[in-house]
């Protein structure tokens, strides 16, 4: 170095000559710097390709694996059993409405009695809470008494006397503690001054081992009498599903056992190989023999599926009979259910009216599933395409199930999309308006204040926004909705997540849109003014139309930003994996949903690497990546087109 500096001292011109420059491996310093920057760009591309490759590598086997899983689902007869379950669930969901109508009607018809029951039950809960300790003591003594009674009953003649002594001691203890409990109850009753005398009396007469007090039962009976006729048809409908439930649960075990065999078979070869290796490495002859025995015990042959599912085929006539009866029962129920108009409660009327189409639907489901059931063959091949449609169009995402995992992408996709659209609907007007204002209309002082402030929002960590959404925004939204008379049961929902994501999208959209507007040549503006346009006309007719492709690109990048956001949606979206019910109109905004990003974050933690579930999550990640990439590509294209124009 000293030599070099001396030489540059001696002749300053030489420092510009090639000879004076320091080189490394024959490449000059400037060249190295240039290579470094160029290399960074290259590295980014390499990373992008590596991520693509990694995602594809993990996801690519999803479809073949899923196909195998669906094939086993059919082979083991689980599909058959699910056909029964579908019928059960369809009947149950129709019955649920009838049951609700019945219970609401009952509550209304017997309002006076039920009010008394509720008052009694509330007081009872309070009294019981007060006497809880005494109750626990009594309960333990009671257990002991039961044990002592058993012992006494089983005792030999010789031990009878001592057993009797124990029994009597236990009886006394139980009696004393019962009295103590009753004393506590009476003390608690005294505190309940607002109760009517008959309720107080009933409370004092309670026994610790009594399920429902006679007072309550009398009242319940009176209530039941008022809806006796409705009760008959409702109970008939309730009980009609029982044979189906029994058959379903019975066959469920058969299919589950068959499936287990199929699953074990998958790893059998590996297990056998491991045991054989153990044979090789066994230190003693005994150990070798044991490993050999274990190796021989591993069954490599596929289970005899025909034999495994034979009970299902045998059950088909029974299933047909049951379905026939069920259809009959649903039809009868429709006949026998009271006319909604005769009910006294409007909500009950509504529920009963809703029940009618549900009952029709249940009939359709029962008929259709029974038909499929009769044609069902366990050895029919599942088309490979089914695993693809099953993923992209599947409406169920069921994992870690004891029965069968399903990987349907649709609920996640609709959830992500819905939240993103809500976020953009909120963010775009604000951020674009702010961009126009700051760039065109604001004074310099205002602009220097507004710009950094909006961009500062970006600095808030998303987990902080998420906690804000849980603790403050959710509650305020619900209070606000209640004030306006809009039902909002869940505080974690689409709207809550959408608002927070809008907040995150604003800086992105604002900054990019402002850039786009800024890039409009000032000649356009000047020309517009020269033609006598006002400031406002210039902005709306000249500036915005010129910058529009840039603004759209900004919006698209904002979309890319929100659809990929994870923490906020994980904490705030409510995580319900089902397609939102759009029939609710704008009410859909108050529903919880799950998202692609949230699900990946939630489920990746404990999944076995390389399992089907793992691959499914990577498949979701891959689709998400593709969406982001496409959105980015489109916006880049738009920006390019725009800059050519400019």
């Amino acid at each position: 170095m000293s030599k070099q500096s001396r030489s540059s001292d001696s002749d300053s011109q030489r420092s510009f000559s090639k000879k004076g420059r320091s080189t490394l491996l024959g490449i000059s310093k400037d060249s190295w710097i240039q290579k470094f920057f160029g290399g960074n760009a290259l590295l980014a591309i390499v990373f992008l390709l590596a991520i693509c490759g990694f995602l594809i590598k993990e996801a690519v086997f999803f479809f073949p694996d899923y196909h195998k899983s669906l094939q086993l689902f059919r082979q083991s007869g689980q599909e058959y059993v699910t056909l029964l379950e579908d019928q059960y669930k369809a009947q149950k969901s129709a019955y649920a409405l009838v049951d609700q109508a019945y219970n609401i009607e009952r509550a209304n018809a017997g309002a006076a009695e039920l009010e008394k029951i509720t008052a009694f039950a509330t007081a009872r809960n309070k009294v019981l809470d007060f006497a809880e300790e005494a109750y626990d003591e009594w309960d333990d003594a009671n257990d002991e008494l039961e044990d002592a009674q058993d012992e006494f009953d089983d005792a030999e003649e010789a031990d009878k006397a001592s057993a009797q002594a124990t029994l009597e001691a236990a009886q006394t203890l139980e009696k004393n503690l019962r009295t103590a409990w009753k004393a506590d109850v009476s003390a608690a009753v005294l505190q309940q001054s607002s109760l009517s005398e008959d309720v107080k009396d009933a409370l004092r007469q309670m026994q610790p081992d009594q399920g429902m007090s006679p007072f309550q039962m009398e009242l319940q009976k009176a209530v039941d009498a008022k809806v006796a006729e409705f009760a008959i048809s409702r109970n008939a409908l309730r009980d009609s599903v029982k044979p189906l439930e029994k058959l379903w649960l019975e066959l469920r075990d058969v299919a589950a056992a068959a499936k287990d065999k199929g699953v074990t078979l998958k790893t059998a070869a590996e297990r056998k190989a491991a045991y054989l290796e153990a044979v090789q490495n066994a230190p003693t002859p005994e150990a070798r023999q044991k490993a050999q025995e274990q190796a021989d015990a591993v069954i490599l042959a596929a289970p005899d599926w025909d034999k495994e599912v034979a009970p299902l085929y045998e059950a088909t006539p029974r299933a047909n009979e049951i379905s026939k009866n069920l259809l009959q029962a649903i039809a009868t129920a429709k006949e026998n259910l009271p006319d909604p108009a005769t009910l006294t409660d409007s909500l009950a009327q509504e529920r009963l009216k809703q029940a009618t189409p549900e009952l029709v639907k249940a009939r359709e489901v029962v008929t259709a599933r029974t038909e499929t059931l009769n044609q069902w063959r366990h050895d029919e091949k599942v088309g490979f395409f089914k695993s693809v449609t099953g993923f992209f169009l599947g409406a169920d995402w069921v994992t870690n199930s004891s029965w069968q995992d399903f990987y349907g992408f649709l609920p996640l996709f609709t959830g992500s999309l819905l939240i993103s659209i809500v976020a953009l609907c909120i963010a775009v007007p604000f951020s674009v308006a702010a961009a126009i204002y700051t760039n065109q209309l604001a004074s310099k002082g205002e602009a220097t204040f507004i710009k950094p402030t909006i961009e500062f929002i970006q600095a808030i960590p998303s987990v902080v926004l998420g906690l804000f959404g849980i603790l403050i925004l959710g509650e305020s939204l619900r209070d606000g909705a209640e004030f306006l008379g809009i039902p909002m049961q869940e505080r974690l929902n689409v709207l809550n997540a959408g608002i927070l994501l809008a907040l995150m999208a604003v800086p992105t959209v604002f900054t990019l849109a402002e850039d786009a507007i800024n890039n409009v040549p000032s000649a356009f503006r000047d020309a517009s003014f020269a033609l006598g346009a006002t400031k406002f006309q210039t902005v709306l007719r000249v500036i915005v139309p010129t910058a529009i492709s840039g603004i759209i690109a900004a919006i698209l990048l904002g979309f890319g930003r929100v659809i990929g956001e994870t923490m906020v949606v994980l904490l705030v979206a409510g995580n319900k994996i089902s397609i939102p019910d759009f029939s609710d109109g704008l009410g859909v905004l108050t529903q919880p949903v799950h998202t692609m990003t949230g699900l990946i974050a939630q489920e990746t933690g404990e999944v076995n690497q390389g399992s089907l579930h793992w691959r499914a999550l990577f498949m979701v990640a891959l689709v998400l990546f593709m969406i982001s990439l496409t959105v980015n590509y489109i916006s880049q294209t738009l920006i390019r087109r725009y800059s050519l124009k400019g």
Partner: protein
Amino acid sequence: MVTCPKVTKLPHKSLGPYMNSEDYTDVLRDTFFLNKILTTMKVTTFATSLLLTGIMAVSAQTKLVIKGSDTLGAKMVPQLSEAYKAAGNNTGFEIAAEGSSSAFTALLAGTAEIGMSSRDVKDKEKNDFIAKGEELVETTAAWDMIAVVVNDKNPVRNLTLKQVEDIFTGDITDWSQVGGAPGSISVYTRNTSSGTYKTFQKLGMNKRDYGSDTQKMAGNQQIAEEVSKNVNGIGYVGLAYAGTEGLKATKVEGVSAKPSKVAKYPLARKLYYYTVGEPTGEAKKFIDWSISSEKGKEVISKVGFIPVPSE
């Protein structure tokens, strides 16, 4: 570290011993997804201790092989073994958690001293031991208990097991069907990667799948938070969270969710140690210590189970 909000509300006065500072860490972990990091740290500690064990083995150390259920083997037994060693016992541990069935095969083959199981031994498995002229001895290691919680403004205080099943599978959708005021039920559950998710399915849902309208929350704390803020909410939590303000644990089949009622409560199960013959030597010492010592009980409560009440 970010402070977790409202943590102060958690402990319930009657649950003092079941809630300690470690639970706050659990809350943070559940909420902020530190599982991975913690697991890695645990594995590292475990590996280090294994290494140390290896070095110490030279100085004539007893070794205990424990195999079986992953419910016990995931957290409880490894942490118990650490605490046991910390208590001054020079014992090496080999713990393999591959499911309850593996406990019995390992005991039968003589490759483990203690078997861990989250279920009773099946008759068929018992017969294998009888055929060999051996006796299988069962010791209760701890209890696993799940409380079903509703909002404290909800009048429903008791549910049957069938009602619990129907609510969580989505067959019952309205509170009016189980004696409450009309209102559609919001169901909050743990997410699929939680062990409780599966346990609850087994104990409370007849192994059926959760309804598609259930909301999957990150942890106990989040479920408690949502149910306490939603009059129509229902969820299940570990016992330590059942006392959160605004919540009420319902009785199931008339039995309340309390440590003292664990034997009768339907959503509770026993976790077992199995040994061939009465436990002897180091195995006996470890089992006795983990069941009856204060430290052992503390570890068991910390990982969310209930220690066996001492006689």
